């Protein structure tokens, strides 16, 4: 199975309401001290593309092996696509890049 790398989208009340409304509250997992997160998975190729496209983002090699520090509006967009597709797989990121074209 191909290795994937998550984008952590942290869940505040507003995002949690959207998840509940879409019947997707189970998508959120407890990640750190009671913080809820959805983890949208990227393939290696998507990870590199994201990091190239958003130079302020960082791949946390030391601890979490996740893509961090994406702008909030980018994460909002990825979050909305995840809800629309009812998925947290690489298809979300494919759709996200299509929306940029």
């Amino acid at each position, binding site marked *: 199975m191909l290795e994937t790398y998550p984008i952590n989208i942290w*869940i*505040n009340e507003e995002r949690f309401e959207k998840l509940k409304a879409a019947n997707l509250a189970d998508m959120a997992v407890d990640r*750190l*001290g*009671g*913080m809820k997160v959805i983890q949208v998975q990227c393939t290696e190729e998507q990870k590199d593309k994201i990091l190239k496209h958003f130079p302020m983002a960082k791949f946390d090699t*030391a601890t979490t092996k996740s893509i961090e*520090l*994406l702008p909030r509006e980018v994460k909002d967009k990825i979050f909305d696509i995840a809800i629309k597709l009812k998925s947290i797989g690489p298809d979300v990121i494919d759709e996200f890049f299509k929306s940029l074209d």
Partner: protein
Amino acid sequence: MMDFIGHGGKEIKERILSPGEAKKKIKNLVSVEISGRIARECIDLGYGFFTPLEGFMGKADVDSVCKKMSLTDGTIWPIPIVFDISSQEIKEKGIKVGDTIVLTHTGNPLAILEVEEIFSYDKDEMAQAVLGTTDTKHPGVRMIGRMQDTFIGGKVTLVNKPQFNPPFDRFFYTPRQLRKEFKKRGWVRIVAHQTRNVPHTGHEWLMKGAWFCAHGDAPVIGNKDEIKLGTGVLVNCIIGPKRTGDYIDEAILLAHQALHDGRYFRDDVHMVSITCWDMRYAGPKEAIFHAILRTNLGCTHHMFGRDHAGVGDYYGTYDAHRIFDQLPPGSLKIKPVRVLEWWYCPVCAEVTYSGLCGHTKERQKFSGTLIRSIIKDGVKPTRVIMRPEVFDVVMECAEKYGFGSPFCTEEYLLKRNPVFVVPPLG
């Protein structure tokens, strides 16, 4: 009697001229405008942060530091402290050995430099020796690469004291001032916490764990509610160049103070200070440099955590712990406190130590990047991850100093109030 003995067994001396002397001394001297890094290092040299150095290194010391991690007299020293200048400027200004030049920053005189030696050094060789790489993705390599082609070695004396702006001013102590402050507080053991981060509870426990280590065998003085501890944590925030995405300096500093004000640390065991230094991200070698720096500040212990002063995957997770085993006994006065990880364990339902907690499958590791990501998403961390007082201060700093963001933006980097100014020489 006060102990002002610093690294290498040398007394910490301040090299500062009075305004009257300074005015006379700089008259008719050739002046050179210096970069922010060199200005910060002049301040460090002038106040004795870099004891036993009295100025910028000459070639023999640079070579010795690169090849043997020590000065030519054998004193342990891991990072060259150099004054770089273009050969063109040297030529144009006619600077030669034996001259004294005045160093200006933002147009005002800060220090004088006695030109004892003018030399060149292979910058790739320096990077390889200090950082273990010449990869330009490494920020320390880029810093060395940006240096000019020629170096001047010689003693530095401040001719003008920098003025620190609020909120930094109340956190700036010279090494001699800090030692007096420790004595006033009755601190005999002081453990340094190096930071460039807003503290989450993992950091808080790193400090608390290090305090236990430093205090462990201290005698109990006093009775019941009046136990005198005599051991303190010095949070020493490193102030240097910033990149977009970093926390703003004000948030780092005031968030650490919020732990104090929120009484997560008792008044008599914790204080926050700043030191100006441009991180080289030299991992293990920078750890030794930090140990030297905090020795000069009067600390007896220094906490080193995971990936201390590292970047990317250039160094092993605990290389900065292991390097202390390679030093000759007695070469440092300060004792390293080597700490593994603190993590959040949902089974223990607390922040706990990786060396003790057996729930390795359930553990939830802290990551500074992850916490930044949470804040960037506009989400308030739970109090078990970040104290609410800390989060509130960070967001206040965003409004007050950060143009709406707790992270450095282009706007912040362009318009921020400087940490210090060099005033005109009155």
